[in-house]
């Protein structure tokens, strides 16, 4: 972990949110850890894994925080950062894959692998597109979605991380989710 011990990470996490410096210090650590974890999953992709960012982020957090006993607030701070990075990693990876496959004219879908998995799976790039559109209208909702989708935070945690009430978070999430679901739906029909 870039040579930083758990104690340092804890200190940075404790400071996180209070100034830019610590966020900047933390960024590479979280990024490295997440990318490393993601890479091990990507390497496995032949076996048609569906990527579970929530699991990745959680694992990264557990590894980095160690037994340091972080406060919940810190956890929210951490996830605010991690979800943003996770999103970037997934999108970069997806773009790379798409570009790779394009020459051969293959369709890339991992849909077959999704049988048996509960709930739907989302096309990373389609979501990214829709999310950027959402951000143009309502950056707050886009951040909320980011925390939920890529960071795996509960409504309550996301509300904390964004410093909004739980009621507000629930309402915004419901709206954002419906909006996105419809956008994604249109995308595939076009």
């Amino acid at each position: 972990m870039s040579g930083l011990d758990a104690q340092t990470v804890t200190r940075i996490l404790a400071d996180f949110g209070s100034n830019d410096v610590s966020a900047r210090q933390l960024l590479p650590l979280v990024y490295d850890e997440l990318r490393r974890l993601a890479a091990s999953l990507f390497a496995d992709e032949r076996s048609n894994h569906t990527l579970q960012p929530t699991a990745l982020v959680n694992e990264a957090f557990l590894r980095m925080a160690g037994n340091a006993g972080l406060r919940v607030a810190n956890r929210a701070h951490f996830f605010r950062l991690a979800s943003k990075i996770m999103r970037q990693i997934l999108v970069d990876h997806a773009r790379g894959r798409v570009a790779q496959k394009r020459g051969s004219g293959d369709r890339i879908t991992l849909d077959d692998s999704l049988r048996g998995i509960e709930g739907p799976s989302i096309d990373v790039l389609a979501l990214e597109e829709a999310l950027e559109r959402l951000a143009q209208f309502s950056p707050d909702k886009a951040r909320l979605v980011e925390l939920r989708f890529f960071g795996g935070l509960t409504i309550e945690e996301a509300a904390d991380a964004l410093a909004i009430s739980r009621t507000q978070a629930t309402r915004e999430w419901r709206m954002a989710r419906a909006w996105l679901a419809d956008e994604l739906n249109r995308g595939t029909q076009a």
Partner: protein
Amino acid sequence: MTSDQFARVEALFDGACAQPAALQGAWLREQCPDDPEVRQKVEAMLAQDARSRVSLDSPAFGAGFHVGDVSGVEQRLRAEIEADGRYRIQSLLGEGGFGSVYRAEQMHPVRRDVALKIVKVGMDTARVLVRFEAECQTLALMNHPGIAKVLDAGATASGRSFFVMELVEGRPITVYCDDEQLDTVARLQLFVRVCEAVRHAHQKGVLHRDLKPSNVLVAERDGQPVPIVIDFGIARAMDDAAPVGSLVTEQGQFLGTPEYMSPEQAVGERDIDTRTDIYALGVLLYELLTGTTPLTRTSSDAAGLLEFQRVIREREPPKPSTRCKTLGPERVSVARRRRTDPATLTRTLRGDLDWIVLKALEKDRAMRYASVDALAADVGRYLADEPIAARPPSKSYQFRKFARRNKGPLAAGIAIFFLLVGGVIGTAIGMIRARHEAGVARKESAIAQAVSEFLNHDLLTAVESQSRGHDVTMRQILDAAAQRLDGRFDDRPEIELALRSSLGRAYRYLGEFALARKHFERGIELSRRPGVSAPKYSIDAKLGLANVDNALGDYAAAESLLREALDEAIRFEGERGGYPLLIMNSLAQTLRRLDRPGDAEAVYQRVIELRRSMPDSTDNQKELLTVMSNLGTLYFMADRYADAAPILSEVRERAEKMLGLEHEVTMKTTYDLAGLLRRLGRLGESEALIVPLKERMERVLGENHPLVCFVRNELAALRQDQGRLEEALALRSQAVAGLERAFGREHPESQYSIRQLVRLLEQMNRPDDAAEQRAKLTTQPATTTPTTPRATATRVPAALTPPDRH
């Protein structure tokens, strides 16, 4: 969909959710009879909402992600672009940071193949297009076989902008050269033609701003390579629509291509000119010659990019020939692609080509080639075996580079270097002149000799060995020198004492108080050994340590050291000597901090009295100003504004005239006066003093110097008084971060700053942030400073004291 429509969708969706499901449709038609687009969207959303199988509380969608069917997003975009019948998309050509490029067929007005570039989401479409239209006139003026014309621009229904260009069927120039195994001469010939195209554009007033291999394509016509530059005018349009102030997004992504970005672009400079393109051409040439860009990134992560931004500004790239030599195993294949072997390639590059490339890559654009023409001409001269215009750097030039390289992290680096080399030798020689006794003179001379040798030899060796290949900071040089000191002068304690004093002072200057203390303490220990007699250095060490104690808030320890040094100095020089007067000044400062203003005032008055009775020299005048300034500060702190104002005004005026704006006395007095005026409610006058002072100090001392933090706090207080709270917050946050780093969190100065920050956050109604800061406060005053002055409104930071010049 517009923002207004979105807001309406949001309100209607919320409203509809509150209705029973069966009534939602009717309710919606009643509420929104006029806008079918909005209504349909809300209906669709309600349908999605009803369909959701997962509850709102579970993790999002309860599922993972996959890399989806490519056609999903793309097909929609294609459909949008093809909708008005002017273009038909054929295939994807490539993807870059700005978006995707397609081969397309233009149907009207002419039927032809074109390249169509769709800009990524996130750019402000309207601005891109406005900017592009503004540029169109200029772009139309360009007519050169080496430039691909931009034909059209537009926006898709979902709001993405696109550009249409002449289609170039070619490979990126670097790929072409490697594929075809062009040798260095052929590469240079191709490069000159690229320069000619760019020159044409510059003559028409068009900059490229994003020159890189993927924008310089080589097509083959009649079996001959033809370089063609694409994307002229596009970077400009996009740059303008990017988030203001920076080329780096929140996630640390560059909007351009970092390896090809000039230093002025890396800092977000908007004032870009032809020399920016020259820099990029320099990078291109570097890559054509060596196979790598001058500055390479080790990782592509976000933090790496922030760091890389700094690298672009500060790191000097290795010469192409050096780079070639150090490529490692790759160098064989790099050379083979140039139809040669590594050794020959290195030889070819060494000399003229090195200087040409480095001149194009100068960080300071004033040092680059003045025009693309000049660059092309120099390459032409090389090809014709004529003397080139670029010159190998001179010694003094190299020194300037060294100075600049080291400016980054430690602003005062070079100054310290002279402080060390010049200061020690200078004073030692001065003492030889002053003392007539032959024995003493010989001894002083021997010390000076040894010190000079150590500094010139060891220190410079350290510089050289460290500077190979990467940046050296002053700190590294000092560390290396300090390491060489241990055990080196065991038999000559006076020399070690002299050097310890110097190193201690240098570290203190850098704000490395712990290291400074170590050297001073060692020096004092040596001075107390029997038989050791070097009063000047012994006094230096004590004074230095006292200054460290003062800076760290241990004022009681400082007082006792100063009294000891004062006795020694009076024995050495008499009361009117340079040292005693200097020490008395420090002593008074310390007494003031010990909250003994009466004692302090008496010492100041004594110094002023002594100075006034001395012959009237410029030096004496300067010192007098310093002491008067300090007395003014003392009055200020004791709330004696009526006494303080006239003395501070007088000192500031005289100091500015006699010592200049950047002198410490001028800066300190300006700082005090600004604070005084602010407290007297004269905010305009205060602002006129403090704003330029902050800029000056940042420039002179560097961004992170503790004194700069104090000035930030003062400016913050002013902004608060003016009600400009956001600005105040930024300043206070910076100040706290800087002080914590310099002194540690527990230090009274840091604590004081944190308290101010907490108060501000509370005032701004940000309780969470305030609580986070409050957690940093120690409940008790720091143990080392039982007598720290109360944090009153008129408090002056302890460390902002006049310099000790010795």
